């Protein structure tokens, strides 16, 4: 399987396993979309701001002595976005319902981020 097929698989599985997730973005650390199901016009910006959020999260955890950064969460009234660093090269962002099963979303998404890290480092 090629890298992009593997990434696509992670992303499809996340959507299938966690119904509360309504969008997945795998982006490079430069903010380019690699695999996503966000509509194309939204994806351009979501990829860029997800990479930005993970960079900023990284600095916040460094400055506030939080240890290795794991997750950045942005919560709105209607939903939330969870952003994970996927190694040095990428980020994984998922959009989920505000009323969904947050525990499951986080568990699956953080596992998926580890997979994305492995694939991007190959």
């Amino acid at each position, binding site marked *: 399987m090629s890298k992009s097929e593997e990434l696509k698989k992670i992303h499809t599985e996340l959507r299938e396993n966690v119904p509360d997730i309504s969008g997945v973005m795998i982006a490079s*650390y*430069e*903010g*380019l979309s690699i695999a996503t199901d966000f509509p194309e016009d939204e994806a*351009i*910006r979501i990829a*860029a*701001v997800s*990479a*930005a959020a*993970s*960079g*900023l*999260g*990284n*600095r916040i955890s460094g400055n506030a002595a939080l240890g290795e950064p794991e997750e950045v969460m942005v919560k709105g009234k209607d939903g939330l976005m969870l952003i994970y660093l996927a190694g040095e090269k990428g980020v994984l962002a998922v959009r989920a319902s505000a009323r969904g099963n947050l525990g499951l979303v986080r568990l699956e998404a953080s596992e998926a981020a580890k997979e994305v890290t492995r694939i991007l480092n190959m």
Partner: protein
Amino acid sequence: MKAELTENILNQIPDSVRFNQDDAAALVAHQSFLLSLEDELVKGFYDHLYAHETTRKIFTDDEREAREKTLRDWYQRTLSGPFDTHYWEWQTLVGLVHIKRNVNNAMVAGMWGWLQTFLGQHVLEKLPSEEALKVIKAVHALQAVVMALISESYQRNMFTAVDKAAGLNEALLYRLVSIEIDEMLAQAR
């Protein structure tokens, strides 16, 4: 100041138009004539800056003498050469010193324009035209390199600072800017 940054910026300008040995030789060859213009140049330069409200506000009340001295030193050093990495790095640093005092690129570019015209008029009056043109070309090429160093190093230093402070790497910043510029262009067209 990092030598690589200066070198990298210099290398963006095509060799064939970049300030070169002939330009350096033209300035040094007419050094004594150009130095004879120093008093008038320094006075004119600051008369303009002090007469304009926006640029006047940059200076503290008791600063003119010190500023005239820095411009004199710069002019003398420039006319003596050599135009080596050390000189170009210094120009990049002068750019940063200006930024620290809120002197922006518009102000500096404007004064470079004045400086070029001032020197151009005097050399055309006093030197044989072939020599005058060599000096004019040298001053233009010098201005282009110095403005390139100042403006590019400002942008790149700002990007580095944003990366350090907020974790937004240079490639990502270019990406964010490019997305917004696409939209601005789409709206403008």
